[in-house]
């Protein structure tokens, strides 16, 4: 993340400075934020190096939950690093790729562009909340049937955008599906299969619109 000038521009500095290295930057940042050897879980409250923390309550995939969060944690960091919900992915970490998409009070948002502390009193649905009683959401099944995932990295975000779309518009046209999923990039470029899958799930019946824990 450093932008200190050096007489010799290394590839690492160049990549980090231009945005192509955002993934690398995202993985480096949390380590830099910690004091050497510090364990976030065991950090003493009020120690000089301790980042500001706040107690919050929220609903995650239907279950109520209370915890103390560091103010600067993004929502996706809270989900992945502190709740073990690693289905939401960090791609760009800048609200551009959509891999971290979750539902916040029933609306799709980039969880990298929300702070964990802001979800106090709110309800979050992640990819882990779609399947119900061991049964896949019809959208998930349609994604499988239509070979939606290629490398799979963007898939959970694609599913959450599709879920948000069908919750508000249970029978979209192909054009509406494309418009509804513009916020999710697939670098395998399997967009057409995703659109087919969403249309198939929408045609399959009304259960899709209120499936999962999102109702």
């Amino acid at each position, binding site marked *: 993340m450093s932008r200190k000038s050096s007489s010799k521009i290394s590839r690492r500095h160049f990549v980090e400075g231009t945005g192509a290295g955002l993934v690398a930057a995202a993985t480096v*940042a949390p380590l830099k934020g910690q004091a050497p050897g510090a364990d976030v879980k065991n950090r003493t409250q009020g120690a000089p190096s301790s*980042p500001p923390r706040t107690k919050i309550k929220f609903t995650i995939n239907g279950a109520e939950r209370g915890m103390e969060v560091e103010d600067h944690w*993004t929502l996706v960091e809270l989900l992945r690093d502190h709740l073990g919900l690693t289905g939401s992915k960090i791609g760009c970490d800048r609200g551009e790729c959509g891999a971290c998409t979750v539902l916040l009070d029933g609306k799709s948002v980039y969880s990298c*562009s929300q*702070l964990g502390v*802001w979800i106090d009193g709110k309800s979050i649905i992640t990819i882990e909340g779609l399947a119900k009683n061991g049964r896949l959401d019809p959208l998930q099944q349609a994604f499988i049937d239509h070979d939606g995932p290629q490398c799979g990295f963007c898939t959970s975000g694609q599913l959450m955008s599709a879920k948000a779309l069908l919750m508000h518009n249970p029978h979209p046209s192909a054009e509406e599906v494309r418009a509804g999923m513009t916020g999710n990039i697939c670098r395998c470029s399997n967009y057409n299969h995703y659109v087919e899958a969403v249309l198939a799930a929408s045609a399959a019946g009304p259960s899709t619109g209120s499936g999962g824990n999102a109702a």
Partner: protein
Amino acid sequence: MKTFTNVNPKSVQEAVKLLGQQGKTTAVVGGGSDLLGMVKERLIQPDILVNLKTIPGLDKITEQGGEVRIGGLTTLATISQDPTIRSRYKVLADAAGAVGTPQIRNAGTIAGNVSQRPWCWYFRNGFPCFKNGGKTCFSIAGENEFHAIFGGGPSYIVHPSDTAPALVALDAKFRIAGPAGERTIAASEFFAPPSKDPSRENVLAHDEVLVEIHLPAAPRGLRSTYHKELDRESWTHAIVSVAVALEMDRDFCKKARVVLGGVAPIPWRLPKVEAMLAGKRITPELAAQAGAASIEGAQPLAKNKYKLPLTKAIVKRTLTAVAA
């Protein structure tokens, strides 16, 4: 990301007080889409984030004596779907619906959209340009295909907001709260050219909050629309856009407001084009003349001359479509 304290004020007055405290770096945050990216890129390093989302009542659309008032924290998704905005102020619904992606529109607020920082790649990548506190604009001699053709100098950024040209076209008023009380200014006075202060895009002081946007009662026969031209089909900023608001009496245009986006450091009004249209029937010929007049005075940079024919064409087409 840098550590900071998130503070949830309960009122606008409290937010203003928090923003103005001495000895701390503070930043105001609405939806957070732009601000958190700025913190992650270390373009700003706040000690305290003043989160407006917990102030009650800032996200409502209300009506008072014909005037429609939009709380600053109203999301772009809400505005694009609101029946009143869609039927009376279509240009604003179109513009709000043209922003980014569904995720951005669900989080992004109208106040944040009009006060977002520029998306010039030099600024966002931390170059020491005017916007980052430096004394130069790298786009002049650099990669300037997305930069200004109007109103540039000494900085050549383009204002990135879609809703800003729409609000200027609608002659909206911005209600701003600060330490000395409130002030209400015209949308066109909110945006400030770089000749005034090249480090900023508007007149909002650091300890002021854009509380509410007022849309004047829609005049009879108001027809309005927003057209956004992109260099791909979705998910980017306008390379050129146009907000058009026409007061029509049957076939005749009584009054026109035409504002360009994506071409200047502020929403760029076209007074000469507006005067050409007033009192006339908008024929294809007049629309073409207006298109030609829309680029008068443009000063393109080395790599953005393509914006000239594009501007001409979308002004012509959008006027024709609105008047039809």
